[in-house]
């Protein structure tokens, strides 16, 4: 039994799934550029108070709507004379918060719901998935605006409404991935070992379903950033004078005949974050497709 052929195993490179995925994503140039851009935006938003920026709230009637490249105002000033660079960097704080937290919340809730629906099956699945179908039957923009519009403006309401929009989408993905995994023999083997449903979901299902759901959620951040800023743009999110990219676009809209390119700047930030998350999601997806 101790023949040498039996002990022959591939070269010792024992490495977990996530370590392999990590190594592959680091080798992907596009993903790494996106990570760098996102890190820059995140860190500058986080460290804004230490960056010696102008006061993002302090305006001045005499220096309104300066052009890009004006001395001391590298990105110009807004309609109230506030420094655009400072407002764009500070704006990242709220914009990223209201754009990303709905996806994080929906990821937690949706994964849980999808896992339960997919693993338990039967009438539990029917109850969860049919309810989800109803919310899925709305176009996401419409549902977000319907709920936000009914709840009224505000950061919390905007996060709540976007979470409600994304939970069904993530639940659907989580449910279909879970259904695929739950019929595999190792889940049967775990049941056969006497483990209860909760232990099996935690120890065996979660690790196998999290990957695809995570990729999907990363892509959703792109949509969420656009929608969250969009709600603020409509006046349903943040309120003035807070710096927030969508709201800034809205208030600067009146200035497009005076200083058009300054007015367009906040959108560049939304676009940059959105496209980076989209590309990162694509990169993650191919990095996780280990068979190739």
């Amino acid at each position, binding site marked *: 039994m101790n023949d040498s052929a039996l002990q022959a195993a591939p070269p010792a490179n024992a490495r977990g799934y996530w370590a392999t995925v990590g190594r592959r994503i680091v080798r992907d140039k596009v993903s790494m550029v996106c990570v760098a851009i996102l890190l820059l935006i995140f860190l500058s938003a986080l460290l804004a108070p230490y960056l010696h920026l102008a006061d993002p709230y302090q305006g001045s009637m005499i220096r309104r709507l300066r052009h890009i490249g004006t001395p001391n105002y590298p990105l110009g000033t807004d309609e109230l004379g506030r420094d655009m660079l400072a407002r764009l960097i500070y704006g990242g704080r709220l914009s990223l918060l209201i754009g990303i937290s709905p996806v994080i919340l929906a990821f937690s809730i949706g994964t849980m719901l999808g896992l339960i629906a997919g693993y338990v099956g039967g009438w539990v699945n029917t109850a969860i998935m*049919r*309810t989800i*179908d*109803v*919310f899925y*039957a*709305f*176009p*996401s*923009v*419409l549902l977000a*605006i*319907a*709920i936000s*519009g*009914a*709840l*009224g403006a505000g950061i919390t309401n905007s996060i709540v409404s976007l979470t409600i929009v994304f939970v069904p989408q993530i639940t659907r993905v989580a449910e279909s991935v879970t259904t695929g995994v739950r019929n595999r023999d190792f889940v049967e083997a775990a049941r056969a070992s006497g483990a209860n449903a909760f232990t099996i979901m935690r120890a065996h299902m979660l690790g196998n379903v999290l990957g695809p759901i995570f990729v999907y959620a990363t892509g959703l951040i*792109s949509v969420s*950033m*656009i929608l969250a*800023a*969009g709600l603020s*743009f*409509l*006046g*349903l999110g943040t309120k003035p004078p807070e710096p927030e990219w*969508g709201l800034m*676009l809205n208030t600067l*809209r009146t200035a*497009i*005949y005076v200083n*058009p*390119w300054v*007015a*367009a700047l*906040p*959108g560049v930030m*939304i*676009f940059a974050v*959105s*496209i980076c998350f*989209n*590309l990162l999601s*694509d990169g993650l997806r191919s990095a996780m497709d280990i068979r190739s």
Partner: protein
Amino acid sequence: MLSYAARRMVYAIPIIIGVALVCFMLVHITPGDPLVAVLPADASQELAQQLRTAYGFDKPLPVQFGLWLWRAVNGDLGSSIATGRPVLAEVLRAVSNTVTLAIAAAIIGFSLGLFFGLVAGYFRDTWIDKIATSIAIAGVSVPHYWLGMVLVIIFSVELNWLPAVGAGPSGSGAWAWDWAHIRFLILPAITTSVIPMGIITRTVRALTGDILSQDFVEALRAKGLRETQVFRHVLKNAAPTALAVMGLQLGYMLGGSILIETVFSWPGSGLLLNSAIFQRDLPLLQGTILVLAMFFVILNLVVDIAQAAIDPRIKRG
């Protein structure tokens, strides 16, 4: 096929009721008494009570829902608080403008998406593919309301070629397919088209790749078929799915037009929704959302059934 259609329609009924319930509940998640919205500021106690009974707010919620649903099925969505006109009439008038916009955008998005997708799939992994794919990703990642602003800056502010806002020269609502009106449609339609363009490019690119890697294409080539004919073959096979995707996108455009209509002051359902929200016109808000959501559900159903009719392999559910 008929039984599939029948089954899909039966399955749609609970969804429709659920969608109606969500719309109904919108009024009840608003902070405060829903009555406040319809009540004049100086209303007396009696008037308040009278209106409460008239609107049925004194009845239990399920009964209120039943009554509301019954009226909605009969075309009565209540009256706008701001204008006093029936909600359904207001919504349908606005929707027609949104449909105009959506169809124009669909034509642009579908043609460009189909073109980019075919080219990208055909020249897979070349620089042509990279450019087309980049355009597609930009299309689905761009905040479209911002893109609208940028287009206005370029074509209205800087070049002064096209009008920035509105849906016609006179300001009156009547739409006509003449150049005087179409000028107003160009920018919003292009703006609306970028998301479906991106999505269709991605879909068609993947389809083209799949079709080209199938055996029958090799067989066609081996039979001496010219590349243009191969291309036509690919187009024939990819078109139904692309059309189905476009159908669904049409629904998203109808329902999600509020941001673009706000940017361009396009007098459609989105702009109506916007004013309903800010005037706290709850019956109008509720009615608009109900109508748009129903459009979406029915469109989904039609696309599903049409797809099954075209492609007999699809027999889901």
